[in-house]
């Protein structure tokens, strides 16, 4: 029974990683850059949830406000920091992204101070089925993550804007020749990725009620690893990588002999997968353009 609980916890954590990984992978696929500051958007989401939860007492309202606010933050970051560097060397963009990351953390520290804040969002209780005890927070997180991923998949594959995102990701210039405004598509991508980061931030607080300026760092790195494992640029890859990493991490933590090594095992897995398949599990080999 404990096996099932552990597995569910893993899937749920994996769902959160997947939501974050989607932000990395979509921005990478479409804007061709590593958004190093993506993890900090989780933190911005965390503080936004905290502020509006304290004001309204409504976790859902706080989460929705965080989603909207983080989308705006993502769009503004893209416009001010990344857009002027379009066409610049990838290294310049990466360093700018690191700068943005520190900027967001410092701003949060100036506004909220450096002490950790405890935010008890909600306790939905436990579901007891015979000897099986399931934390409802976990279930809600998992189901929401699945619903969001399904909606995103439909959006990307079925709507005109979604298809334009795929087109830009495959061949930016060809997409421009179809009349697609690449800048607009990149802006939408940042908005979606940042909204997902806000959702992930909310779930993170639901699981660990601790808000701090560095709360985005570890989930950010884990989710980035997940995106690379799945094949960076691939949307299903980010989902698969996130779930995989969440399950492995939770299972390792549940086994006493392995619990000290869970991070080492996760990154070891990354290295092995990249050795066997350098493009990641679902990543495609980049075709040479004529």
């Amino acid at each position, binding site marked *: 029974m404990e096996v099932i609980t552990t597995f569910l916890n893993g899937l749920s954590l994996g769902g959160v990683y997947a939501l974050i990984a989607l932000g990395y992978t979509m921005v990478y696929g479409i804007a061709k850059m590593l958004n190093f500051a993506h993890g900090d958007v989780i933190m911005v989401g965390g503080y936004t949830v905290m502020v509006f939860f304290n004001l309204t007492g409504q976790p859902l309202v706080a989460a929705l406000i965080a989603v909207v606010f983080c989308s705006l933050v993502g769009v503004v970051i893209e416009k001010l920091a990344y857009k002027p560097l379009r066409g610049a060397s990838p290294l310049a963009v990466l360093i700018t992204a690191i700068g943005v990351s520190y900027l967001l953390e410092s701003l949060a520290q100036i506004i909220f101070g450096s002490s950790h804040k405890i935010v008890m969002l909600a306790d939905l209780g436990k579901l007891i089925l015979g000897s099986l005890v399931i934390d409802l927070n976990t279930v809600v997180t998992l189901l929401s993550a699945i619903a969001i991923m399904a909606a995103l998949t439909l959006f990307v594959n079925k709507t*005109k804007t979604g298809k334009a995102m*795929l087109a830009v990701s495959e*061949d930016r*210039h*060809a997409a*421009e*020749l*179809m*009349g697609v405004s690449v800048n607009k598509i990149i802006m939408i991508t940042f908005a979606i990725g940042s909204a997902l980061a806000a959702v992930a931030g909310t779930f993170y607080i639901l699981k660990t009620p601790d808000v701090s300026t560095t709360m985005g760092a570890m989930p950010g790195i884990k989710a980035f690893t997940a995106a690379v494992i799945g094949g960076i640029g691939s949307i299903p890859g980010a989902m698969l990588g996130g779930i995989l990493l969440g399950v492995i991490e939770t299972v390792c933590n549940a086994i006493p002999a392995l619990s000290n090594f869970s991070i080492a095992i996760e990154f070891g897995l990354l290295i092995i997968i990249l050795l066997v398949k350098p493009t990641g599990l679902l990543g*495609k080999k980049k075709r040479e353009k004529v």
Partner: protein
Amino acid sequence: MALLEVENLEVSYGLIKAVKGVSFTVEKGEIVALIGANGAGKTTIMHAISGLIPKAGGKITYNGKDVTNLQAHKLVPLGISQVPEGRRIFQELTVAENLEMGAYTRKDKKEFDETLSYVYERFPILKERRKQVAGTLSGGEQQMLAMSRALMSHPDLVLLDEPSMGLSPLFVNTVFDMIKDMNALGKTILVVEQNANKALSIANRAYVLETGKITLSGTGTEMLADERVKAAYLG
């Protein structure tokens, strides 16, 4: 007034000047060919017209409007459509989705359906394969798709960059037939080709480009008969 007027166009890649003051015109309804060896600057000129690369100098006028500094995606609604070198179809999208992308700037559903049925009638293989990802098509079929995709935006001017490159003789003929059909539909054509023979035989007028400069121009027939053209491009 010419539909497209290129005046003194200059394009540089860093310190290298790839296009050094090129001027030419394309009149409404014409087929104009631009021929030249590999590296002469043909693709660069095409990309400059369609707004993909910035210009170092000169002016481009389309339909009386100065479009020199317009971004690529803003030129499509004005009626310019490009079939890029190497086809550049979206390999991971289906054939039907590629055609939808071609119509990205169009709002009129009826018009879309009409063009789509024209394309599917003209190339039944595309209809048959409409649900397959485009990467599974053969090179020739991909070129049919690329040309069809360009039609979906209802262009007045179609720019074709080496549409017959790398294709079997059968598909080369299909490509040139399709160019004539597009022209018969009222589209003005600017085609870049290394297959000078074929291109000149369908062109009303042609220009020869050598290392970033236009060195010869005339009607298609004149150029086919020109000794210098024969020596350099009609081996």
